[in-house]
């Protein structure tokens, strides 16, 4: 592995750790009463957001979902302001109006996350239409989950994107459950990516726990879109280690299944790979500490230990 590749992988590791520490901290803050409402945590899926966003140019666009903190961080979001938004503060990205599920940062190409499952898919598709109309070579990356793939607008949007050869990559994060509904109960097919053929676009399945594989496959799709060759459906098989939301007792899956997936934790897999390339435990600890520190600073910024000042 050359120096450039190593640097990139260290960057992936840091980003995934930042997301992991941030989400775990949110879980704690919720227990301590500093976050209200609910939160949908991304723990376990970091490989998808980090790998997919690595395939983008800085001026490309993404849309996100209710489980969107990981996407936002991978796209370059500042966790101080993300946390402020989650806490409903004026300093948040959306001045506290959107909260955890409805965030955006148009300045950096984050065209918004959404509380309606699948709702952002047509919106992302429209952004791709506009990018094409404007004659620019921007690409839109549209994140959504297995649940969303059964909403009507998924079908309508992918069809239109294919017909009009829009510069969009649809990234389906299949974490095997739509809340409590397992994919076996919601799909007759084994893979979601095979639906791509129905619309006349390419589709592929990738191991979502392997951040390098995700980066590679999404990059291929992004390049294709940028060259005017139309959309792709990339299905990432992944797993969320925590519940759907905070009020989820996870009775619909087994602890054994969870443990098995934790063996394939994307952070663990990349760390092991980097260790083989000579990365020491010390160096790994340094990276992890840096991520923790950034999370601590975010908590301090958003007044995690002080009274919440609500947006006016």
């Amino acid at each position: 592995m050359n120096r450039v590749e190593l640097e990139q992988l260290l960057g992936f590791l840091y980003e995934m750790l930042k997301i992991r520490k941030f989400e775990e901290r949110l879980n704690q803050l919720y227990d301590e009463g500093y976050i209200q409402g609910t939160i949908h945590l991304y723990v376990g899926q970091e490989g998808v957001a980090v790998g997919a966003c690595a395939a983008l140019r800085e001026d490309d666009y993404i849309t996100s979902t209710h489980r969107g903190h990981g996407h936002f961080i991978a796209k370059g979001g500042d966790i101080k302001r993300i946390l402020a938004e989650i806490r409903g503060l004026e300093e948040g990205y959306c001045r506290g109006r959107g909260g955890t599920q409805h965030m955006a940062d148009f300045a950096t190409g984050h065209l918004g996350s959404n509380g309606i499952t699948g709702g952002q898919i047509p919106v992302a598709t429209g952004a791709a239409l506009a990018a094409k109309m404007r004659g620019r070579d921007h690409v839109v990356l549209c994140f959504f989950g297995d649940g969303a793939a059964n909403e009507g607008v998924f079908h309508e949007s992918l069809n239109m994107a294919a017909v009009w050869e829009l510069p969009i990559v649809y990234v389906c994060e299949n974490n095997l459950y739509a809340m409590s509904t397992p994919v076996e109960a919601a799909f007759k097919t084994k893979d979601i990516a095979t639906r791509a053929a129905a619309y006349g676009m390419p589709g592929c399945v990738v191991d979502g726990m392997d951040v390098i594989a995700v980066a590679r496959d999404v990059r291929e799709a992004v390049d294709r879109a940028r060259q005017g060759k139309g959309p792709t459906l990339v299905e990432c098989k992944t797993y969320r280690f925590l519940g759907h939301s905070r009020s989820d007792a996870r009775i619909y899956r087994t602890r054994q299944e969870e443990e098995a997936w934790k063996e394939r934790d994307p952070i663990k897999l990349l760390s092991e790979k980097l260790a083989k390339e000579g990365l020491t435990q010390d160096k790994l600890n340094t990276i992890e500490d840096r991520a923790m520190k950034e999370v601590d600073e975010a908590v301090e910024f958003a007044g995690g230990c002080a009274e919440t000042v609500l947006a006016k």
Partner: protein
Amino acid sequence: MSDDTELREITYRQAIQEALVEEMEANPDVFLIGEDIGVYGGAFAVTKGLLDRFGPERVIDTPMSEAATVGLATGASFLGMRPVAEIMFMDFVTLAMDQIVNHATKFSFMYGGQTNVPLVVRTPCGGWRGYGATHSQSLEAWFLHVPGISVVMPSTPHDAKGLLKTALRSEGPVLYVEHKLLYGTRGGVFTNNYTVPFGDAAVRREGKHVTVVAYSYLATQVIAIADELRRTGTEVEVIDPRTLTPLDIDTIANSVKKTGRVVLVEEGHETGGVCAEIGFQIMEHAYEYLDAPMKRVAAGNTPIACNRSLENATLPSSDDIRNAILSVLH
């Protein structure tokens, strides 16, 4: 631009097209999207000729996907485009409700003002053509209940053009509702670049005995009834709100303060309708001035039949309107 302003008679349909053409010529970001609007020229011929004039990049024929069409238009507006999405019949707006209610009208708020959604959704409402229950509805009342969308319903060619131009320059989502029976009606339309503002009711007829509030097609019927009653000495003041959101309640209330009697008219179903909202606002603004309880004339709470006499019995007839006016006067 020339200052020669001419007033000439054109149809409501032509007036709408004129607004679209003028705005598309002035602003390259305006584009049209909908079913059968290009090659076919639109189910009601409103966009006829526009594909040839502006090309397939700006006049886009879609597959049958109302929800995604509105969603795509919304997403395009994020990048600064100004889409005009056509929903072929207002009845079909139901297919796009989630994208309108949970997306287009909420993004500006939820994202803390980072974006506007300058989306215009054009759609024809209305019955009296024997089209049956799913092709004849007037669903505007639902949209009064959705914060963040303007509801525009012109009754004349002049207003159709001016209001659509305003819509195409406004910042937020606009639901622009045409009426099937109005497409062929003729009226004076200026040739210059005029606009009609939202939230500005038109006093169609002045009178001191009773205020009648009516919009879209029924406004034209109420005007005819008002003219007829004037010949027998009854003065009906006809207020056409032109936009239901924003609603010009002041003009309506001022009229009520003058006449003391009110009849509200709509083509939608009575329960939970537009008349209920306007009536309550009148009570809030001018209760002391009412000399009689307010009356409303609306469609019955039943689906609209295909059979013409059943349809006519369900929808508000001129007799229904005249009877309501006479009953508040006595």
